[in-house]
């Protein structure tokens, strides 16, 4: 939605506030994947767009105002064309941009210059920003910047985006962007088409076979052979440029690179993967979900926050407080009655305070007024949801985001893709599919958009389905981790095995059903790097913040809906309707049906609904499996409809209902 708005503004179609934007020159940040564009965008905008060490982090366009300019962040591309959705998005911005800051990885200059030459030949005003300057210096690579500038006919500046070195020259870079030198041979090649289109940009795209642009002018697009000829010519000119500008002393293999290579081959790569998974398991499953959450949920949430809120409220409202003091032989229990609130009975209040000050005291507040009970009581909207959101979910979600950020920044993900390529190609995908799938463990909604990096529509369909059916998102994983931890290894194993079997069968079935075949793997591996703590923490923080904002508001909507359902009697009707399924087939208490209502709103609420029910470990396993397969959250559903069309989106959505009860039921029949 946001994207469409940005794009229509680019094409000058927008109405509201258009004048202001029409005046501002449009500056597009363009470059190969993973060269640091988003770091530049963050600098210009003062906002945070995701920065990670794998190609395909940015898959849609963002824009921001900077001085008199409007700056656009774009997905990384190796050339301007329409081979996939990412490229189409980037192409629009570049074609309509007034100024292009072409960011290149100086360390991989030869690769990146392809896009640079193409932009110059398209007649765009360009400045070349040679980024990764720190790496170039560190590795003793000599690059003749002046010569490069002379050969290309445009300004060249050098930067190191992680330290912001050279960023003081960015204004200069924008102001001095200009059309570069175009080879005579290229000029004569495009001359005839330029006469018809009026500008070089469209002419080059048409000659390279871009049918969208050709249609616009009513011309025939170039054939694949024409394109290949143009491409090869460009590559040859690049070789000449590199020969004249770059010298390298024999490179020494670095430790990080050696590790990167070991991660590729299953022989060494599988042990590496296992080590990573074990570390993640101990970090999330043991450290965060037990130690940290025990502290935040019990000590901060229940004993500090809820206690203070409840006793404050009980100061004024009629309340019944039961205090239990567990002892070695018997539990001491005492109930204090405050029909007019605690403050009306200072004597009894101080007696209560002395009694409940013992270390292990467990307190139960019961408010006589039903309204006060709904807001501040045991399951009160204020008390319980704040404890649940801030002191249970948040630490777990942050834990997941932290792990994801570390993995994203290391350069490991594309290597995992490569290692798993062969296995994934047996089920109709290629290795690249692992990237949106892994990102799905963070947030399915975002991952739906990242499927744009996949080569064919077919793969996008399969991966989108897998995401909705078989991948739990971080919020849901948080609840799952909290519920499964302490139940031992068996439920975890059953859960993982079931989801894995579902994943493989779903992909295999779709592979058989959908005509065509998956595209073969072609990945440019980024350099391995030590994750930068600043970025990891920043990303964790921004994602957690976004999560809380969204989850917080939906939580209110969700609990309100359940409240209304309860009062109107619809909840009982729904429970009775689903009873044959919930009780006989899934072997769960009929109240578990509540979880499905909450689950339609957000997946983690579904699981949260189960949290307070008294379930056996087997029932927990079945319930968690069912709720994981069950429908994606509303946000994800909307994005899926937009990315994949309503027909495919609705089919997947309906499919998750069937699959959830089918899979959950089968497991129930076996284990309960």
């Amino acid at each position: 939605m946001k994207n469409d708005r940005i794009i229509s503004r680019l094409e000058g179609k927008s109405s509201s506030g258009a004048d202001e934007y029409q005046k501002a020159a449009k500056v597009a940040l363009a470059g190969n994947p993973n060269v640091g564009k988003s770091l530049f965008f963050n600098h210009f905008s003062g906002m945070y767009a995701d920065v990670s060490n794998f190609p395909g982090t940015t898959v849609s366009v963002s824009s921001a105002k900077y001085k008199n300019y409007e700056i656009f962040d774009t997905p990384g591309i190796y050339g301007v064309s329409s081979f996939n959705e990412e490229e189409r998005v980037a192409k629009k911005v570049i074609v309509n941009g007034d100024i292009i800051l072409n960011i290149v990885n100086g360390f991989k200059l030869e690769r990146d210059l392809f896009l640079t030459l193409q932009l110059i030949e398209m007649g765009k005003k360009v400045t070349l920003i040679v980024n990764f300057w720190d790496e170039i210096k560190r590795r003793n690579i000599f690059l003749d910047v002046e010569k490069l500038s002379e050969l290309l006919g445009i300004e060249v500046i050098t930067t190191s985006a992680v330290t912001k070195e050279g960023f003081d020259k960015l204004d200069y870079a924008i102001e001095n962007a200009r059309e570069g030198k175009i080879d005579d041979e290229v000029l004569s090649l495009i001359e005839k088409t330029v006469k018809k289109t009026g500008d070089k940009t469209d002419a080059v795209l048409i000659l390279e076979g871009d049918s969208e642009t050709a249609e616009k002018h009513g011309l025939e697009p170039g054939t694949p052979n024409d394109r290949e000829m143009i491409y090869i010519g460009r590559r040859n000119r690049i070789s000449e440029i590199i020969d004249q500008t770059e010298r390298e002393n024999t490179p020494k293999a670095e430790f990080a690179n050696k590790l990167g290579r070991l991660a590729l081959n299953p022989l060494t790569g599988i042990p590496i993967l296992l080590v990573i998974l074990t570390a993640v398991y101990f970090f999330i499953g043991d450290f965060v979900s037990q130690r940290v959450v025990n502290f935040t949920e019990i000590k901060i949430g229940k004993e500090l926050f809820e206690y203070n809120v409840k006793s404050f409220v009980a100061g004024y409202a009629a309340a019944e407080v039961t205090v239990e003091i567990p002892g070695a032989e018997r539990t001491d229990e005492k109930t204090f009655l405050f029909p007019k609130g605690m403050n009306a009975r200072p004597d009894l209040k101080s007696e209560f305070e002395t009694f409940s000050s013992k270390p292990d005291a467990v307190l139960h507040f019961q408010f006589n007024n039903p309204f006060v009970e709904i807001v501040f009581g045991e399951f009160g909207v204020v008390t319980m949801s704040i404890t649940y959101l801030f002191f249970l979910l948040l630490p777990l979600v942050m834990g997941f985001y932290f792990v994801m950020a570390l993995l994203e920044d290391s350069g490991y993900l594309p290597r995992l893709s490569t290692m798993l390529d062969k296995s994934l190609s047996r089920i109709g995908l290629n290795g690249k599919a692992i990237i949106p799938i892994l990102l799905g463990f963070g947030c399915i909604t975002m991952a739906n958009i990242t499927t744009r990096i996949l080569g064919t529509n077919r793969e996008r369909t399969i991966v989108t389905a897998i995401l909705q059916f078989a991948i739990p998102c971080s919020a849901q994983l948080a609840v799952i981790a909290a519920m499964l931890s302490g139940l031992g290894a068996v439920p975890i194993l059953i859960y993982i095995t079931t989801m894995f079997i579902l994943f493989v069968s779903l992909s295999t079935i779709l592979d058989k059903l959908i005509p065509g075949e998956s595209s073969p793997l072609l990945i440019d591996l980024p350099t391995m790097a030590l994750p930068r703590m600043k970025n990891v923490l920043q990303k964790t923080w921004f994602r957690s913040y976004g999560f809380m904002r969204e989850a917080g508001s939906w939580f209110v909507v969700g609990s309100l809906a359940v409240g209304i359902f309860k009062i109107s009697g619809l909840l009982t009707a729904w429970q009775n309707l689903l009873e044959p399924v919930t009780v006989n087939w899934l072997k769960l208490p009929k109240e578990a049906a509540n979880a499905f209502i909450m689950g339609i709103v957000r997946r983690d609420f579904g699981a949260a609904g189960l949290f307070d029910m008294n379930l056996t470990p087997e029932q927990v396993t079945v319930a968690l499996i069912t709720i994981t397969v069950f429908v994606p959250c509303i946000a994800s559903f909307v994005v899926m409809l937009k990315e994949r069309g309503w027909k495919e989106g609705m089919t997947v959505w309906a499919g998750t209902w069937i699959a959830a009860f089918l899979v959950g039921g089968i497991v129930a029949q076996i284990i309960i």
Partner: protein
Amino acid sequence: MRTSLDKAEKGNSVKITGLPEGETAAQLIRLGITVGRTVKCLDRLPGGTVILQNRRQEIAIGQRLAENISVVI
């Protein structure tokens, strides 16, 4: 020896002599894999996926693509 890229062994220097048709060729050329270029085979994974080194760049090519790229080893 004339063969296809998926037959390359770890450590081989391979010279590219032919690319598949169409969009795939375009993608390879953009990444710097062109006819006539000599690259190093860093590894060949059990499934036939080949890891190439082209200057400072490392590229992974799946088996189904590699078998359509002709090379001289």
